[in-house]
């Protein structure tokens, strides 16, 4: 702020602290709830202080699951989610890098048309095209498989568009210098373009990993085999699965575990992200 107004500063801090509190509180409740024994919740009041059952609850969800309600241990579901999110994130990066490369650096017939075609798919998120996509995936026999979980979500107009914009800012002379230096198109792509895009790649990886991790409707639709359940589906099944009252302590433990990998990915990538931001120069 330009003015150094004492009350303004205090007010700003109050607003910010309230905001942080609003965001943090549900997470806090979830973490606390996951440490209590089952009986605590029957009173209908959420405890605000940690309980004694943390280790036991987490052990239960990871290794045993809720055998009575037919929910498998979430270890497997975490793994499924991880595979799905990684495949989607890496697949999206690979495909969008290559298609942006083609669109920016090669002259082929209907180049602009294809670019707009890709662009138009931005308007068609998974939910809109879910029925035909399901039909295709089912006919290809990809239900209940990792391929079925990830492949239909890999094409990405957003990432293609982003890389296209970035490639267009890379000076043409770099490409020419590489040509004189004897680098063919793919070598130029690998040795120069990709290393220069590393910042964008890191940022997009984070976004796409979370996108993949948080997929709910699609895995729900195409998986019937518990071996392919993802963690986000798992939470839902835990809440509605059994006949009895939901076991909130286990649900919350699952929620905390489900939220952890995206947080780790962000933390791990943030370093590269910041490093890329400060070191890249065209």
């Amino acid at each position, binding site marked *: 702020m330009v003015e150094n107004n004492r009350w303004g500063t205090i007010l700003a801090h109050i607003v910010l602290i309230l905001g942080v509190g609003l965001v943090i509180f549900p997470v806090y409740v979830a973490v606390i709830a996951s440490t209590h024994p089952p009986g605590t919740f029957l009173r209908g009041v959420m405890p605000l202080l940690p309980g004694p059952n943390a280790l036991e609850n987490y052990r239960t969800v990871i290794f045993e699951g809720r055998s009575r309600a037919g929910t498998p241990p979430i270890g497997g579901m975490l793994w499924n989610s991880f595979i799905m999110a990684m495949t989607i994130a890496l697949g999206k990066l690979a495909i969008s890098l290559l298609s942006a490369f083609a669109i920016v650096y090669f002259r082929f017939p209907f180049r602009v048309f294809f670019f707009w075609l890709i662009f138009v798919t931005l308007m068609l998120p998974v939910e809109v095209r879910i029925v035909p996509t399901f039909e295709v995936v089912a006919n290809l026999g990809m239900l209940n498989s990792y391929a079925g979980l990830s492949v239909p979500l890999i094409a990405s107009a957003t990432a293609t568009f982003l890389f296209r914009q970035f490639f267009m800012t890379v000076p043409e002379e770099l490409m020419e210098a590489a040509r004189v*230096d004897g680098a063919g198109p793919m070598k130029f792509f690998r040795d120069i373009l990709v290393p220069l895009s590393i910042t964008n790649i890191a940022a997009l990886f984070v976004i796409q990993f979370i996108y993949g991790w948080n997929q709910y409707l699609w895995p729900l639709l195409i998986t019937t085999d518990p071996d392919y359940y993802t963690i986000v589906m798992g939470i839902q099944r835990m809440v509605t699965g059994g006949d009895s009252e939901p076991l909130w302590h286990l649900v919350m433990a699952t929620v905390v575990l489900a939220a952890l990998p995206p947080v780790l990915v962000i933390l791990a990538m943030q370093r590269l992200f910041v490093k890329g931001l400060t070191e890249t120069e065209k």
Partner: protein
Amino acid sequence: MAGIHLDDLHKTYAGDVRAVKGVSLDIADGEFVVLVGPSGCGKSTLLRMVAGLETITEGTLKIGDRVVNNLEPADRDIAMVFQNYALYPHMTVYDNLAYGLRNRRVPKEEIDRRVREAATMLEIAPFLDRKPRALSGGQRQRVAMGRALVREPAAFLFDEPLSNLDAKLRVQMRVEIKQLQRRLGTTSLYVTHDQLEAMTLGDRLVVLNGGVMEQVGTPMEVYDRPASVFVAGFIGSPAMNMIAAGYLGGNGGAGALAGLPAGTDLVGIRPDDMVLTPPEGPHLSLSGRLELLEPAGAETHLYLRLAGSDQPVVARLAGRAELTEGQEITVHAALSTLHPFESASGRRTG
């Protein structure tokens, strides 16, 4: 090492834009040729055609004995220095120099030897581990040169390599490029819009205008006998004065005109050839009002407007001039220094 032979090269872009219209030129092995001209004259296009970055619409290009029209830049045995250096920003200076050699599968020890040799020659050895962003403009320029040098190519192509440097550094690098080229004896083609750079660097100049060669010759040939009005105006600073023969005829220059070749209707006089005291022998005198006096240290520029005409004339005198602005003065030029032109064709008449 090899010469470069351009035979009737044409470049036509889509939409029938003709950037280069029939350029033929033989560059001898080891020669330093400068392509010079105003922006848009086709000089960069021509260089890029030699480099292989632009396709050749028509004509034949040979490097050495090979026709290279359809070869990729990398297969033409040339190295290029770009205007914006075009260094790979994510690689160290060492890797920047080594990249082209690695792509050619030159043995590691050989790469190392050549990189270190070039780095020493260009005085960038202390920076080999740095990234380009940690270098100054002049150092980046040297790295760009080094990248060309390590290739040990048949020819160097320079695309306005000094235009991003400040004036002082530009003069210094100009001298270094010249010395380096002399030492290595590599055929070089150099593009610039700076006539001073062209004059000082080239063994020969090629003055381009509108995609056509206006004149080819040694710098002094081009300076002493510009083949056209365009060349006369482009080479030399301040630019040559062009005075209509009609004006001279009516203002005491009739005698001078009689000595010029038939067909001359435009007379060029270099600012340097004008003096305040009448020279011995036949000469031309011009009177006018001194509008502006520019003392530039070792020399003085006089801007006058000729009597009975709006024609501005510039004279350059060595040393200082004891004159005041607004004064009527007369300048003289020996007849032997006049450049006769025909205005319709723009060509020199004799």
